[in-house]
């Protein structure tokens, strides 16, 4: 591997100004986007998914349709297998027209194929005209974000790039760029742009911008070249507009961009026919159609996933990316630049799953990233050390002799050894193993319930099972009070760390085991109540994808509920005595659902008479074992992410910080005031 990722992570985290710029900007983009897509109904998203699925399945047919339409309208069409093919074709067109100056409108595909440096190497001047791209070009950098390429820089650092003594305000810089770029627009011989969508039957490229630079790029020069990936193809103008209707709000949070420019070979230039070239780039895409990364091609490049990715939000796209950046950038990199380049930064994905929740096309980005890790493990490295991969066995053995285990966990030498062997950072507090696990504790405590109205089998994961069984018992007591009889079936861990680190075969074994343990209860009419959001996420989202026994997995998934969901569903209502509490709630990533804006747990707490504020910065940064991993492999980034959550919790002035994932609870308890941090189940169990 060529990259020293840990060094890059360290540098990014030490650039405190950049971390603040990024978190601030991306949170604003996220909120703007959420507001904009709120007007869409479930069926709008379903239609978009269906369009993109069809586009993907029909891409080969649409390529032929487009070729015919372009050639019949007097344009030139070229399907490039590789970046070299695409660059060579474009360079030939440029050379034939004796062009000295090329103006460009934003195109990630041209970044993918390295077009600028190719053209520069044959003596052509290339000028980027999108403001963000221009900044990046002058800085000699790569775009760190597909939508806002210079999001990592502030006005002061940008003004310095442009001219001496330029006022460091967005307005002054923009005025300067307008004047400065005019001469290039007016004298360019060739204009090159990307595409947001291409209608095959009309041979028409559609480009959305707010700046209007693509209008000058495509209209003034004698030769126009569009370079785009094959995934941009849709069969018809109707599909194109349906896609744009969803793309713009998902990207910038606008209803629509200032401009949508339709460019076809049919329109005339200045008094003569303009040369129109459409270069479609394959570069691994068509091959990917038949594999587990196929869904990548449904991406509409809105960058919604960037806004919520906890590690991207603090590290930025120069670390979290190769040429393509951000969460979806991982599968894009694997498809277009190869597995190794993707694997190199894949450890930055912590499998929070927020990207999938935010994606308007419902692309299973976290699963594809797990696949990338799985394929790269063994070949280019290991995503987790051997001991960490066997964390479940370690906990099981440790829990057999909790006293001894805790002695080791509490000793400096013990922690040193654990850091060396399992890569767990010594600074991280590890919760002690309970003297009695949940199986035994629940048997011993028994249940106070006479005529149960429902029966629930609890799926808990290992933190509650072996380290915090008393928190699980608090949940049992609450369930008992509403007339639910609980059992704790013999079960394994959720397997999330295996999924997270890309050990999918092993995860599949764990999944099959858990399904086999839970299914008999489902068949006997039990509900599966998951005491950890992650446990629920595994049953619902992941197991059906990684086991062969799809029907069984679906049967268990269908009967599975989160704790709060279950309580709401069955009318739990115990109004708090007095005025209720002022609470700040942290929403665990794995409890989130698409297009749901209010957490079930908040609904529940409000029903009980509490005042609840949502501290909505996103992930807490713990991500299971990842936040425990030593140094820049996890801990440092985890704490940086966690601190933004703590700030937002503290800002609420709430009496207690509440969450219902034990992993998040650990992170908050460690970084905030532990006396103010409560697990939801503890709160519900105690009379307040």
């Amino acid at each position, binding site marked *: 591997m060529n990259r020293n990722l840990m060094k890059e992570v360290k540098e990014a985290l030490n650039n405190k100004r950049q971390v603040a710029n990024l978190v601030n900007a991306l949170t604003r983009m996220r909120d703007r986007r959420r507001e904009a897509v709120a007007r869409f109904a479930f069926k709008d998203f379903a239609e978009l998914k269906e369009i993109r699925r069809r586009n993907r399945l029909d891409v080969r047919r649409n390529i032929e349709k487009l070729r015919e339409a372009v050639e019949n309208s007097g344009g030139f069409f070229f399907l490039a297998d590789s970046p070299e093919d695409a660059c060579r074709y474009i360079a030939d067109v440029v050379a034939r027209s004796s062009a000295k100056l090329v103006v460009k409108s934003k195109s990630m595909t041209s970044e993918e194929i390295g077009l600028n440096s190719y053209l520069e190497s044959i003596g052509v001047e290339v000028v980027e005209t999108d403001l963000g791209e221009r900044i990046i070009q002058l800085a000699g950098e790569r775009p760190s974000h597909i939508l806002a390429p210079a999001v990592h820089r502030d006005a002061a650092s940008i003004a310095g790039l442009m001219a001496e003594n330029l006022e460091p305000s967005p307005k002054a810089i923009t005025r300067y760029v307008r004047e400065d770029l005019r001469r290039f627009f007016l004298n360019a011989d060739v204009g090159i742009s990307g595409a947001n969508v291409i209608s095959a039957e009309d041979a028409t490229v559609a480009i959305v911008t707010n700046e*209007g630079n693509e209008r000058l790029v495509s209209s003034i020069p004698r030769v126009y070249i569009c370079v785009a990936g094959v995934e941009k193809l849709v069969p018809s103008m109707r599909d194109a507009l349906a896609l744009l209707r969803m793309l713009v709000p998902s990207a910038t949070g*606008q*209803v629509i961009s200032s401009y949508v*420019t339709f460019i076809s070979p049919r*329109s005339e230039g200045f008094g003569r026919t303009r040369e129109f070239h459409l270069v479609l780039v394959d570069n691994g895409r068509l091959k990917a159609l038949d594999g587990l990364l196929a869904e990548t091609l449904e991406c509409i490049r809105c960058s919604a996933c960037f806004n919520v990715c906890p590690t991207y939000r603090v590290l930025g796209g120069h670390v979290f990316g190769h040429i393509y950046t951000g969460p979806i950038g991982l599968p894009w990199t694997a498809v277009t630049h190869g597995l190794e380049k993707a694997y190199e930064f894949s450890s930055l994905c912590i499998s929070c799953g927020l990207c999938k929740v935010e994606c308007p096309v419902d692309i299973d980005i976290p699963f594809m990233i797990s696949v990338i890790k799985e394929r790269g493990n063994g070949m280019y490295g290991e995503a987790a050390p051997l001991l960490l991969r066997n964390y479940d066995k370690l906990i099981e053995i440790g829990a057999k002799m909790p006293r001894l285990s805790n002695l080791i966990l509490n000793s400096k030498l013990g922690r040193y050894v654990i850091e060396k062997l399992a890569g767990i950072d010594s600074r991280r507090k590890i919760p002690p193993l309970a003297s009695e696990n949940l199986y035994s504790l629940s048997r011993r405590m028994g249940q106070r319930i006479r005529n149960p109205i429902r029966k629930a089998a609890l799926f808990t994961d290992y933190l509650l099972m072996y380290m915090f069984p008393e928190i699980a018992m608090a949940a049992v007591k609450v369930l008992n009070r509403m007339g639910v009889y609980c059992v704790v079936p013999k079960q394994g861990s959720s397997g999330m760390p295996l999924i997270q680190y890309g050990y999918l075969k092993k995860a599949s074994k764990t999944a099959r085991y858990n399904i086999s343990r839970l299914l008999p209860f489902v068949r006997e009419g039990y509900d599966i109540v998951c005491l950890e959001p992650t446990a629920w996420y595994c049953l619902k989202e992941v197991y059906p994808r990684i086991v062969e026994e799809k029907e069984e997995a679906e049967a268990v998934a269908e009967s599975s509920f989160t704790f709060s969901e279950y309580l709401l569903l069955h009318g739990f209502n115990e109004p708090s005595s007095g005025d209720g509490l002022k609470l700040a709630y942290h929403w665990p990533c794995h409890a989130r659902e698409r297009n749901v804006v209010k957490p079930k747990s908040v609904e529940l707490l409000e029903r009980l008479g509490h005042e609840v504020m949502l501290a909505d910065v996103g992930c807490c940064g713990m991500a299971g074992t990842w936040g425990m991993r030593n140094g820049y492999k996890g801990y440092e980034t985890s704490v940086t992410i966690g601190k933004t959550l703590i700030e937002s919790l503290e800002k609420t002035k709430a009496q207690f910080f509440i969450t219902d994932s034990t992993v998040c609870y650990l992170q908050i308890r460690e970084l905030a005031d532990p006396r103010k941090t409560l697990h939801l189940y503890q709160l519900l169990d105690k009379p307040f």
Partner: protein
Amino acid sequence: MTDAVSRFVSNATAAGSEVVELKTLGECFKRVVEVLQVEGVKHVSVQPSSATAPLYEMLRGMGYNVVSPAAGIKPLSVVEAGISPAELGIAETGTVVVATDSEAARLVSALPLINIILLDKSNIIESLVDAHRWVRGFISKGYAVSFITGPSKTGDIELKMVKGVHGPHRVLVFIHES
């Protein structure tokens, strides 16, 4: 119908277009001249169409340097205001659809700092997706089609909105009766 017009007005306004509802095309022309005077415009371009033909003559008569899109890029580049007839308005997004018979004429709405768009009330449709029929029709005739919704702008620096990046910083939409 009126519903669509009011939705158009509110969405276009929200996007930063300055929308004025007027009665006749003649009133629109009067307003155009007012804007040109207030802004101190001397060089103007009018996208040719049957609707704008009288305006073209009118402005020439008033001593404006009226540049034809066919005149070439150098004369066009000094134009301070462009006047474009819209083919369609889209209520859902507050968008106007401009179709020009050449790429050169597209620049009338792209190069100057001010863009005034004339829109016939009866050409306002409800939904963005429904516009596909018209867009297809124009393209098949060799027209260059543009959707315009508010001024040229950017949020590329610190996500702060600045108007007038490469295109107009003012977009005015004058709606008139048929």
